[in-house]
């Protein structure tokens, strides 16, 4: 009598009516929006529709932004008390919360990430970074650099496309709290939330020139990095570009922090809470389409539970809901750009050619836009390129181990060292493994957890310095006498 049923979820799209996107955007310099000269399109990667046209900043624009930032630093921001600076940061944080839905919708349209993630992760965390650093603004003598500290001056900040607003918050909030002014360049494919943030700066009546936003591609980034009027560079992006920046600033007075790539090991021991470990594996690699520098892209699995975990993982992956990022039930959104999609396809093809066994969850990919089904490769060894190179997409490489030491050796056998995960119900094993792993962030029985109070950053080729917490703040300060 009872027939098999399937519980289909009807579309539940978030409305995009809350955002008004202008046909073209200029730069935000000296507290005003100024027209750009050249423009390029920014698209919705889920539909390939052009959302707007963004200005490409050249030398004159960057010069103007740096000049505005310098003026604001000298005349206003460096003279203001920490308590007053803190008030502005609190105000920005509150406005971001008030306009959270607008930010979330715009981020999803421009980036392709699911609205559930932009709504529940990106935007609340971005506001939290401003709240956290607002509290620091009048307590800088406790930042670990002695009782007398100074800001660097003008900070040049270049951020990636994977968490556009959140990375802006990671950069701008500590810089402002410490008393710097900033020139920030969002990634070329995801500038819109940064430009909305510029509106928030106006709404908060932030003194003109404290935050300047110039849009553009790598050429604009290079102009910022090489600009003699900038005192501090903060970059989040690929290791290749990080190396170019490190070379460029080496002979200058500039301080630099780099948050670069990763190839994180997610180690599952046989005594793990298996169901939650499977969730952690999924969250580790499929959160934000795997466009996460700290993604758990290498699953290092104890051989004794390999079959059980892989069976459960595949079942779980088959339930991942891929599709319209604006749908509230979507788990996996669009790949951010065609270029990135081609890179993911290329490395996946390499994985197959090198003998990895590929399995993708069965799902229909939309016709338009950039999509990649959640995929795992089993039978991967240290000698495979997909175990070494950052794919930056929803592709997981599965390696196995026999003894705890072997797991650690494999996890550390990489030029990167940004993050790692440990899954075990045995406390002593977690403590031991976390001491052996050479990674800046180690999660135990969880993954991809972020908090403004916690420093984040990498070992080895994953970067220089930390962001977040007291350690991140101190990168925007110098102790007087240590200049």
């Amino acid at each position, binding site marked *: 009598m009872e027939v098999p049923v399937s*519980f289909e*979820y009807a579309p539940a799209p978030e409305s995009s009516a809350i955002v008004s996107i202008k046909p073209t955007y200029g730069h935000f310099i000296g507290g005003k929006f100024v027209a750009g000269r050249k423009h390029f399109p920014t698209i919705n990667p889920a539909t390939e529709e052009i959302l707007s046209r963004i200005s490409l900043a050249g030398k004159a624009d960057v010069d103007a932004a740096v000049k505005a930032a310098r003026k604001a630093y000298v005349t206003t921001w460096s003279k203001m008390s920490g308590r007053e600076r803190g008030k502005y940061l609190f105000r920005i944080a509150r406005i971001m919360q008030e306009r959270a839905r607008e930010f979330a919708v715009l981020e999803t349209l421009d980036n392709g990430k699911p609205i559930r993630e932009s709504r*529940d992760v990106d935007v609340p965390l971005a506001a939290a970074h401003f709240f956290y650093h607002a509290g620091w603004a009048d307590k800088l003598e406790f930042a670990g650099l002695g009782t007398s500290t100074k800001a660097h001056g003008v900070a040049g900040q270049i951020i990636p496309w994977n968490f556009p607003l959140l990375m802006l918050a990671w950069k701008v909030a500590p810089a402002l709290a410490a008393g710097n002014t900033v020139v920030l360049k969002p990634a070329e494919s995801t500038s819109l939330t940064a430009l909305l943030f510029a509106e928030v700066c106006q709404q908060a009546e932030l003194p003109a020139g404290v935050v300047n936003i110039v849009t553009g591609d790598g050429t604009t980034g290079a102009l910022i990095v090489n600009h003699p009027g900038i005192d501090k560079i903060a970059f989040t992006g690929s290791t290749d570009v990080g190396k170019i920046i490190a070379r460029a600033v080496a002979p200058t007075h500039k301080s630099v922090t780099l948050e670069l790539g990763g190839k994180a090991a997610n180690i599952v021991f046989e005594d793990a809470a298996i169901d939650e470990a499977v*969730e952690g594996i999924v969250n580790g690699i499929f959160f934000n389409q795997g466009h996460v520098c700290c993604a758990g892209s290498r699953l290092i699995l104890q051989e004794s539970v390999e079959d059980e975990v892989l069976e459960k993982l595949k079942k779980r992956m088959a*339930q991942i809901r891929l599709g319209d990022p604006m749908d509230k039930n979507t788990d996996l959104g669009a790949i951010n750009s065609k270029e990135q999609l081609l890179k993911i396809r290329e490395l996946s093809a390499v994985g197959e050619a090198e003998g990895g066994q590929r399995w993708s969850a069965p799902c229909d990919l939309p016709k338009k836009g950039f999509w990649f089904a959640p995929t795992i490769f089993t039978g991967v060894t240290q000698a495979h390129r997909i175990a070494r190179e950052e794919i930056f997409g929803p592709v997981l490489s599965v390696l196995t181990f026999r003894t705890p030491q072997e797991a650690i050796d494999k996890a550390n056998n990489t030029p990167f060292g940004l993050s790692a995960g440990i899954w075990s119900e045995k406390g002593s094993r977690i403590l031991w493994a976390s001491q052996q792993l050479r990674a800046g962030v180690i999660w135990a029985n*969880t993954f991809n957890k972020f908090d403004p109070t916690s420093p984040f950053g990498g070992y080895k080729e994953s970067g220089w310095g930390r962001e977040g917490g007291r350690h991140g703040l101190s990168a925007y300060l110098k102790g007087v006498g240590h200049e």
Partner: protein
Amino acid sequence: MSFYGLVDGSDASLKKYLVSLPGVDQVGAEQRAAMLATRSIKTTSKRWAIDTAISMVDLTTLEGADTPGKVKALCTKAVRPDPTNSDVPSVGAVCVYNDMVGIARKHLDLIGGQHVGVAAVSTAFPSGRASMAVKIQDTQDALNAGASEIDMVIDRGAFLGGRYIDVFNEIVKIRELCGTRAHLKVIFETGELVTYDNVRKVSFLAMAAGADFIKTSTGKIAPAATAPVVLVMLEAVRDFYSMAQVRIGVKPAGGIRNTKDAIKQLVLVNETAGSEWLKPSLFRIGASALLNDLLMQRMKMDDGYYASPQYVTID
């Protein structure tokens, strides 16, 4: 009895079986349940979910003040939840104390409710604190009166004291009594077992002992059917199916009061055990107030506005 070949009925084999189960990470389980609670169920899926939830309700009255009149009213409501609309399905069963079973069965049959089951709470419900002889007599009375489902409670004291074999043997005994006459639901009272590790352990224990359904709570203790507890139990029936090729049902009871909560339960089922469990023979919701909220939401979907509560019968 063979216990699906998982245990041989000895204390040692039962302990070995329970120890082999992986632990549950509290933070991870709660995070997963919270994520699934964000699913947005709209339009046609909501309509389907409401009707499905109605058909899964075990409409319950477990009060000291229960009378034949009250139970008959409950039975009428169970058969035709909305007297003005025959499209509304009947609920799965009515759930009563064992002295009301005969009255409920007779009244259901009288009003054309042969398809609605009668579930009797049993084994010294809700505390389970009585001798085995009393528990057996309690169950026997309910069966004799025509109960088609027995909702027994486990001895939580024995479980928390590590006397798993005592809990196991009680379930086995009641299972034998039920035979083919009644389905056996085993109530854990997860609010007293507290940890998710215990919930997993007791789920596997009860399934091996012969439960047809595993049920969260009596409804007398809070917290009851929280989303993470139901999640862990759904994982247990899913994994038990892989081990024993038998699908065991799940019944959350207690604290599910409105349509939103009920739909969240169906989402949990769908994305944990799978859609095979989305039917009254494998998923029930023990509730009293829930049914009226489901009816109100159903009317709202048909009419486009919320009706006054006076358009829904109070019992």
